[in-house]
């Protein structure tokens, strides 16, 4: 009963948070203003004469002129991608500060994302393997039982048991876990 209660409480709050975030997302001005679009494009281009600054941030004269060009071209109806391509044609590819989602630069994005997903997959696979290969070793951990052994106790008391077990376990440094868990049970 109590478990259901706290579960639905947490779930309810998470739903509230999600609602707030989606409201914020929906209320955000949808068609971005011209200024925002100029800034957007500018922040993807590197100021050619500065050290580590984007066209959007740099105060240099060249960057100011480039921002003017971006504004003109966007007003003329070009897409963001076309404007960036315009600068790539003139200054070479190193002007793009963020690798593009196309061609060779796509690798810059795909390799880390792919490896991360592969890592996550490998992790899950290994865990499942470990889990399956040991169906009987579930030497019935103490925690679940303790939760049931203490019906009606208030939360603090339950937590106290759990915490004390862990703290005691930490006190006796680097012992074999099996010995340790026995000592826990005997406590």
């Amino acid at each position, binding site marked *: 009963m*109590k*478990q259901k209660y*706290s579960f639905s*409480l*947490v779930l309810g*709050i998470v739903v*509230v*948070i999600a609602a*707030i*975030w989606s409201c914020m*997302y929906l*209320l*955000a001005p949808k068609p971005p203003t011209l200024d925002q679009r100029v800034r957007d494009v500018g922040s*993807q281009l590197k100021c050619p004469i500065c050290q*580590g600054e*984007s066209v959007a*941030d740099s*105060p240099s004269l060249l960057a100011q002129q480039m921002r003017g060009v971006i504004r003109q071209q966007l007003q003329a109806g070009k897409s963001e991608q076309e404007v960036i391509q315009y600068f790539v044609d003139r200054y*070479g590819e190193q*002007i*793009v*500060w*963020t*690798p593009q989602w196309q061609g*060779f*630069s796509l*690798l*810059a*994005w795909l390799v*880390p994302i792919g*490896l*991360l997903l592969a890592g*996550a997959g490998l*992790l899950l696979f290994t*865990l499942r393997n*470990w*889990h399956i290969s*040991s169906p009987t*070793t*579930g030497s019935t*951990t103490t*925690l*679940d039982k303790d*939760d049931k052994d203490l019906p009606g106790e208030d939360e*603090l008391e*339950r*937590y106290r048991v*759990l*915490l*004390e077990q*862990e*703290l005691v376990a*930490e*006190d*006796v*440094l680097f*012992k*074999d*876990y099996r*010995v340790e868990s026995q000592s826990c049970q005997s406590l």
Partner: protein
Amino acid sequence: MYFSDLGTVSLILALGFALYTMIVAVIGAMRNQPQLVASAQRSVLAVTFFLILASAALIISFLTHDFGVSYVAQHSNLAMPWYFTAAAFYGGQEGSLLYWALTLSLFSAIFVFTAKRAPVVLIPYVVATLMGIETFFLIMLTTVSNPFVRILAPSDGNGLNPLLMDPGMLVHPPMLLMGYMSFSVPFAFAVAAMVTGNLSSDWLRSIRRWTLAAWSIQTTGLVLGAWWAYHVLGWGGYWGWDPVENAALLPWLTATAFLHSTMVQERRGMLKVWNRALVILSFALSIFGTFEVRSGVISSVHSFAYSDVGSYFLVFLAIVIVFSTGLFLFRLPKLHAEQEFDSVISREGVFLLNNLLLVGMAFATLWGTIFPLISAVIRRQTMTVGPPFYDQVIGPLLAVLILAMGVGPLLAWRRTSSAALWRNLGVPTIIAAVCAAVLPLAGVTDILANIGFSLCAFTAAASLYELWRGMCVRHSHGEPYLLALYMLFNRYRQRYGGYVVHLGLVLLTVGVIGSHFFQIQQDALLKPGQDMNVAGFRLTYLGNLDTKEPDKEIITSQLQIWHDGQLQSYIYPGRTFYHNFDDQPASQISITTFGVTDLYVFLADWTGASQATIRVFINPLVPLVWYGGLLMLLGGILCWWPVRTKRAAVRVSQTSDVSRSQKSAGIESKGIVV
């Protein structure tokens, strides 16, 4: 006879002793002759002695302005104050390698003095590995990169690069170089463990403490570097995803992953292979970092250190990787887990997620750093990977990491009953919801910032709530709350020190979110008497001042800051021109902190005495980055600090059940712990 000659002789002698140590230690271990191992240990102290001597010789050469030493002539001049002259010791390539070698020898000496605590079988191999690394640096120092090369003495030296003439120079490079170096010791332990194939659980404790020390030093170095960049570079930020910054972050990430996964090994006997790989990776990445700073293959704001030693580092890196991978594969069959995994919803499950995220971040950062190189080699086409890439890749990973940091401590080892989990999550989730709801009302409408702040609120609440409940448990045994808090930290340093680190990282992340999403930038061309208004601050420009000193010229603008209708202070942003480096003026940035908001004023341009282009950044929450960094360092030290009283207590309790502990030692020595 100059001091520099003494330096050269010392370096050669140190090299001799390092080689001797390496050979004798290995022979002593293989033939089982303790006297040889003891001789090797004493020989380490000789290496340390000669490196101290060499370093002293270099510092004396600097302080006595012996410009006959080429390195001294290139990196100092008569006009520099003595502390920068002494700090110029590590201002260039040769000196920084000497500094690396010196700190490595000092750490080796510390290891020798504390060797009683380390498992006996490992000592000779740890010593040999450390001296192997030392040998590489000493070969470099005595041949291609000798700081004591003499030239015909010029009347005055070049002086130091103006960017380096800053208080940051006195603390950041020594910390970061020492941080890189300190990953050598865990690596040496890992090598020793793999060579002997035999290690007790003492191994884990030793390697963990050395890694904690390395982690704390590297944390300090990184935060100091960010602070220095913020004060010197003038673009309003503290972290630019510059290749050299990235290189320093990489071993920190893998070491953080190791510090977590080692707990799984300690508790559950799992992840042995993985842990060993992380230690090797951290060291390889720290060598890669040193290589990157020194080689200049990748252009960076740290580009005052180009040289040709890069190829030597590359060779050394290759040797390290091949050697340790070989050992690693050789020992792989013996490294199997002692226990099985029970449930994903457990603390070890979250630690695995933590490792995936940290290593993922490290890989993404490394990939972004070397991608321009790959592109240049494959396509002959240079390209740039700038901050937006890292923001988009690392940002989401950091968000999940923060969430995991909050959930992890609430879970138990092995498995957590879902009832307990939901109960524990209640309070932090409510606080996150309050944060998410209040922020839009307070005018923060950016959704990503809202998500970030809410996650930070969740994790901060979870950590503090955990601390609070720990206090309650002790309080219920009759301790007053403050004493309970003290006792928690005193008795369970690693656990609660870890929470302090987590809180520090949350604070730092809040600062990062604040400055990333809410920075305001404004430029204005001003004449005397004119104002500019930025976010409630009014700056009144008064004019320029020009100060001429023997070795430099300083131009400053005088401005008043007005806030809430009151004059707050006068500020003097400016530029310093050193005569030897006229084309590289150093910026004097004025940073005034109001609560948690920084008013960052930079003199962008000026004409004569009465016109200036002033650039103002409003950087909200940036001070939290520094407080968070301090808190992380504090937590690291708490975790690292030796536990005397506890040991004694354990020893008493152990004597009472000797038989049991002997039994467990017996289990361990059968090789399953390897």
